[in-house]
């Protein structure tokens, strides 16, 4: 069909492979060095573990560990004292599964294979041998910092990819070099129902089938290798497969599979595979698991609920109402029936919304042990979503357990993390009020024994007078088009009325196109570019150094667009 070809061509023009200019990678060497790494948090309310509040307690941190805690600890001479009177100390939260710290993969040219029925394993998304160590590379992505500032002390990080992206490792959110933050390596396999792009497995059902094949063959290979190692005489030499070898710990039940299962259908599929093959299953990123709660409960699977929630409904319905009024230009009396229907639809939507928000409470009520995952959740929504779940019936204690002790157990790190106890890793945070107070703020973070004071973020002015906010710099973008992701750069220069924007694409990094119709209100940025007579309208919301939104291409429709600031302008 010509449309598709046309679109592909146009997108290829838009997209570019650009040179990664590593301008800001070096650490500032003229910053003053920390004078001490001994800290004394004085006189705080210490939430030692869910349900245990120790008043008037001080904590001594030394050598990256919680050295001691109690009401009457002496202050060592070299300690930096933090007066935490009336403040609350919590164990660093644990994100039970996310890509935190791993940068979005750069999209190279869409791989083309001659025979899409038999693609190379890595293009098909089958890389179980991949590790977080490899995936992170030299530098942690700044998402790690976001999590740290939200009170998270540990993250179970999993590589990005498709059906079997690789193995997960637990990282401390400390500020060290990547390898220094690794707490426990290669503890899990991550799996998802994410098809490959235009090659096998190109669909969910293909992924299901491929998964079974791999698993069964891993079982056979593993068994054969064992007998070969016992006595190779008369046996053909085993054929080595990196992919299968990486699955041996899984088939030996030494390593669980964290299966990404946001929707009820994904949960069902993960359960099916589990029942057939018998691996240790951790359902991960669950957003809509309540309809299958009994099945999940009955089989003692690990459960990691998603921190993602649907858009809050109140403001939205108001917005929509306004829009409807405008559109329908109501004047006649026949709106009654219509609004009865709309009202019914609105109620159903609200009910659905409430079910998502109330999932954690329901799981708690049913006695299911669960943790939380920040996969697919915007950093800025994490805390408010936790509060929404509490509002939806989840106990504060339950929420806290899901953020600390439960994931510590799940990930096998409760000896070093999850509670504030002597000898554990000093990852904790100090909040000016109880965490679940609406206006509580995190004041201090300790990560790997290093204390950071968190500056209060300047409040943005409301009311649209923010067009002078600077968003100068090079922004990297990804556009999801069906079966493909394309990326490139948006370069912003100047601000306010002087703002200039140009865009290039992978295919031709030198070829920048200037944008027109630029409009920026401090958060929302819109502009248009014209490539070969086709107009691309970009509409994105910028949050800190990240943005998301979409690009719409004439009659072809719109595509989600995400991205982040490549390097902050100095």
């Amino acid at each position, binding site marked *: 069909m010509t449309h598709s070809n046309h679109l592909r061509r146009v997108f290829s023009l838009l997209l570019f492979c650009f040179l990664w200019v590593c301008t800001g990678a070096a650490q500032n060497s003229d910053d003053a060095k920390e004078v001490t790494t001994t800290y004394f948090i004085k006189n705080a309310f210490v939430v030692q573990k869910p349900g245990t509040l120790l008043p008037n307690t001080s904590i001594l941190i030394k050598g990256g560990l919680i050295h001691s805690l109690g009401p009457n600890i002496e202050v060592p001479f070299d300690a930096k004292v933090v007066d935490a009177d009336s403040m609350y100390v919590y164990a660093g939260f644990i994100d039970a599964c996310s890509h935190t710290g791993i940068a979005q993969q750069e999209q190279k040219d869409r791989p083309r294979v001659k025979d899409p029925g038999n693609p190379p394993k890595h293009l098909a998304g089958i890389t179980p041998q991949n590790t977080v160590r490899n995936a992170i590379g030299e530098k942690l992505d700044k998402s790690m910092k976001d999590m740290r500032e939200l009170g998270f002390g540990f993250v179970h990080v999993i590589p990005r990819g498709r059906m079997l992206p690789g193995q997960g490792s637990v990282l401390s959110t400390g500020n060290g070099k990547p390898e220094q933050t690794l707490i426990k390596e290669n503890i899990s396999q991550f799996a998802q129902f994410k098809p490959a792009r235009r090659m096998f497995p190109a669909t969910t059902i293909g992924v299901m089938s491929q998964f079974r094949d791999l698993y069964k063959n891993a079982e056979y290979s593993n068994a054969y290798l064992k007998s070969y190692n016992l006595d190779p005489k008369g046996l053909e030499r085993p054929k080595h497969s990196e992919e299968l070898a990486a699955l041996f710990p899984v088939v030996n039940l030494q390593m669980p599979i964290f299966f990404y299962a946001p929707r009820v259908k994904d949960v069902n599929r993960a359960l099916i595979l589990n029942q057939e093959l018998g691996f240790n299953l951790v359902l991960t990123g669950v957003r809509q698991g309540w309809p299958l709660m009994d099945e999940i409960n009955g089989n003692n699977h690990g459960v990691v609920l998603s921190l993602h929630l649907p858009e809050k409904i109140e403001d939205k319905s108001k917005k929509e109402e306004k829009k409807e009024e405008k559109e*329908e*230009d109501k004047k*006649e009396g026949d709106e009654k029936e219509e609004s009865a229907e709309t009202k019914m*639809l609105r109620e159903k939507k609200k009910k659905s919304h409430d079910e998502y928000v109330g999932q954690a409470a329901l799981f708690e009520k049913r006695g299911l042990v669960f943790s939380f995952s920040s996969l697919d959740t915007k950093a800025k929504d994490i805390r408010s979503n936790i509060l929404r779940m509490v509002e939806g019936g989840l106990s504060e204690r339950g929420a806290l357990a899901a953020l600390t002790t439960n994931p510590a157990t799940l990930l096998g790190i409760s000896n070093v993390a999850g509670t504030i106890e002597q000898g554990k890793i000093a990852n904790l945070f100090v909040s000016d009020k109880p965490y679940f107070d609406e206006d509580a703020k995190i004041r201090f973070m300790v990560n790997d024994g290093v204390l950071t004071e968190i500056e209060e973020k300047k409040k943005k002015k409301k009311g649209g007078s923010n067009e002078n906010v600077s968003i100068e710099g090079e922004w990297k973008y990804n556009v999801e088009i*069906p079966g493909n992701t394309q990326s490139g750069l948006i370069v912003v220069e100047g601000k306010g009325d002087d703002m200039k924007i140009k865009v290039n694409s992978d295919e031709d990094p030198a070829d920048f196109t200037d944008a027109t119709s630029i409009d920026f209100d401090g958060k929302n940025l819109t502009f248009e570019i014209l490539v070969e007579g086709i107009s691309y309208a970009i509409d994105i919301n910028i949050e800190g150094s990240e943005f998301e939104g*979409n690009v*719409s291409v004439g*009659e072809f*429709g*719109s595509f989600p667009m995400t991205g982040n600031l490549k390097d902050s302008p100095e």
Partner: protein
Amino acid sequence: MNKIYIWVVLVLVGLSGQAQMVEKSKKGTFLLKDATLHTITQGIIQGDLLVRDGRIAEIGIINESGASIEIIDCSGKHVYPGFIDGGTTLGLSEVGSISLTQDYRELGDFTPHMQALTAVNPNSVSIPVTRTNGVTTVIAKTAGGLFPGTAALINLHGYTPGQMYAGFKGVQMNFPSSGKRGRWDRRTPEEIKKDGDKAMKKLNDIWDKAVQYAAIDSAANASQQKISDYNPQMEALLPIVRGEAPLLVEVNKDIDIKNAIKWLEKNKLKAIFTGVSEGFRVTEELLKSGIPVITGPVLSVPGRTSARYDVSYKNPSIMLKAGIKVAIRTNETENVRNLPFNAGFAATYGMGVEEALKAITITPAEIFGVENQLGSLEKGKIANLFVSDGDPFEMKTEIQYLFINGYKVPIESRHTLLYDEFLERDPGVKR
């Protein structure tokens, strides 16, 4: 069923180069005796009907005879006026997946001068397949952009488009839609709105120019001059701008229907609405506008997943009961033969048989301004009619005789011919 035609030596078209003998349509004088005549406009009459010179020459008790009159005994049988489908691509497409056999969509967004009638293939295999179910007349329409072309009303018999032409042509417009274009449309609501606004802007721009062109044209006529530019698009729109002819406006979603009404009122245009699948949601506005509706297919899924399962079945009756003039179409190509069944479903879901019959006979005839020629059994009208052994909405019923333009057309199509050949194949399995 068609065993009376076993004398036909049947050879498959396309599979063999041999010449075939085909029963031809026959012109003449036909007297349908002792029939139940469903006149549509004058109730149900027991009596005779005389076809002569292409017209219905007489209705009542007729005692003519003579060698030139073919008498057809219709006792126990029913006579209906030929059904009229208010929207199809019949004759404009032969094989769905082969674009070179499709002639209903020209390039471009603004092509009102494209004439469907030009491309109607009188020998399309689909035409006999259609008429043998009692459908004698259809709108053959174009498809595509904002102004895809000009549709034409045709009778399903004739060797040239000219012979088939049934007296109505209409410029078509696809009113900009605020709905998704299909399950695969990934545009956000905001983008859909933006696209809609863009399309409206384009539409208004075209219309401003059309109005201007009409003014210049009038001035030119008044001063007996000629416009020097060749502008067939604007030329095609002249009768619409001047309110001399109705515009066929395709519109489906509730809000779009309301907006289309406003737009037409603003520009003081005559119109016929087509599609109108959510007409049931905006009956008051439709009634007030006085715009007639050609709706369908009735056999279609609701446009919203939240809608009751049977809204498409009920839509025609809800509009009709609100006082709107409603005709029914299939929007089909090779299966326009399902028109009576679409009407049958509408009848079952609230419209009633009598009104559903009108919706595929006299009502579309009125909408197209050919009610003096077509749409009912009345003396003097064109002899488009058929004889059946029962209610033509019922699948069990057989259509037994068919007349178009007074020609007695054989009840025969590729489908019946294949049946006749293959029901009892010889040789069977064994040679």
